[in-house]
């Protein structure tokens, strides 16, 4: 494996026990490798399982079969079989995931949400707060908003906090799920810059970019997905 992330034969289906045991196959043998510095865009109609791929890589969904290999610390971790503690370590140090929605925590301010990423990685309170302030500022979250809990923020503001929360740390692997979906043009450009910078410093990026302009601006490769299979 030369990449930072390698997916082999990934299969994932859902069984809905509460709805009569309906079986929904989503992924049936996905193979993919992402090299450092690459930004791979997953492309396909909605419902084809693009987010499911990202969630499986992040360990949020359990794969049914296949391997998801992540270069972590000095070795390689298979996220499909890794122990929960290992997955947590990978999430803390190696794989950053910008989900579509920010899960807000009551009372915790936007600045603290962002700083927490660095604090979890061992940064001291002050430097974490400084870094949080800088990235939030760059994403056009004004200082007075930074001290508020994001529960009352608009969709776009929440999404930018969500981006800041991940981009504040230099993760070797980034998973971006529609990072610009509810952003205006100005902020979209900031995000594009940030993604390019991340790729420039060697991050392996796997993303879903609905907006064709953004996709064209950041993706170094596009992987088309169709009915659970990718086609180059």
């Amino acid at each position, binding site marked *: 494996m030369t990449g930072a992330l390698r997916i082999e034969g990934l299969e994932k289906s*859902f*069984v*809905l*026990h*509460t709805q009569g045991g309906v079986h929904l196959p989503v992924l049936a043998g996905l193979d993919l490798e992402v090299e450092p510095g690459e930004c791979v865009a997953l492309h396909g109609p909605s419902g084809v399982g693009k987010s499911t791929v990202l*969630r499986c890589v992040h*360990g*949020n*969904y*359990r794969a049914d079969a296949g391997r998801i290999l992540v270069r972590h610390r000095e070795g390689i971790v298979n996220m499909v079989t890794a122990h*929960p*503690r290992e*997955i*947590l370590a990978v999430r803390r140090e190696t794989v950053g995931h910008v989900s579509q929605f920010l*899960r807000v*925590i*009551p*009372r*915790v301010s936007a600045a603290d949400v962002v700083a927490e990423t660095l*604090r*979890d990685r061992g940064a001291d309170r002050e430097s974490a707060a400084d870094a949080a302030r800088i990235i939030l500022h760059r994403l056009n979250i004004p200082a007075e908003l930074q001290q508020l809990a994001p529960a009352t923020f608009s969709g776009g503001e929440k999404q930018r906090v969500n981006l800041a929360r991940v981009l504040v740390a230099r993760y070797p692997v980034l998973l971006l799920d529609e990072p610009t979906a509810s952003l205006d043009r100005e902020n979209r450009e900031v995000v594009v810059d940030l993604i390019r910078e991340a790729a420039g410093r060697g991050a392996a990026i796997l993303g879903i970019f609905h907006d064709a302009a953004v996709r064209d601006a950041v993706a170094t490769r596009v992987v088309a997905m169709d009915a659970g299979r990718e086609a180059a």
Partner: protein
Amino acid sequence: MACDDRPLLSARGLTRYYGRILGCRDVSFDIWPGEVLGIVGESGSGKTTVLKCISARLEPSAGTVTYDTRTDGPVDIHRVSEPSRRLLMRTDWGFVHQDPRDGLRMAVSAGANIGERLMAVGARHYGQIRETATSWLGKVEMDTGRMDDLPRTFSGGMQQRLQIARNLVTAPRIVFMDEPTGGLDVSVQARLLDLLRGLVSDLGLAAVVVTHDLAVTRLLSHRLLVMRHGTVVETGLTDQVLDDPQHPYTQLLVSSVLHP
């Protein structure tokens, strides 16, 4: 840390019957230092039985609970002598009850409630005990001016925070919590959760949190144990279990939650 390589507490094959009634059966799991484990399930699923067994408050009918002590390494907490067990319980462990009245001395002041564990392990300097108690009142976001007031003059949320301070004052390594936010209204609950979250991560505490509230467990716990009819039906990372539940019962549980 070297001790990071082995679990702080391990349960193996925990089984408990109340007469002929099953409390829990064949429950096994590990908790590592600094890790928060949530145990969820409906009333009567056996989650509180498990909590009592692993915190030495209830003897299991079968199975073992191993705890990695600071001085003697791993010991079976149900086999170790009573003095050592009780010493563990009031120094290295904390227990936060759902009803603060079960965990507080209601007839003595807030300061004495916090200071008790210190005095129990030999603190004999009034000024220092009081200083420590004051600092803990601050850490749990209570007005230090209420130091000499009796707990019954406090609101439910304040009593719960006092109970937490009382437990954490001896710097325990693991805290057992039984529905810590159970009796509180929603806004108070949120504040307490936030406080607990901060304390657990700042102090590197391990914790076991029993709750029927999935939102509580999503905020607090790293890993989750889903129990039903006395057995564990599913286990995994909290977000994994809640976002991609596998077992029919877990799916039912997750789909039954109301999202305002």
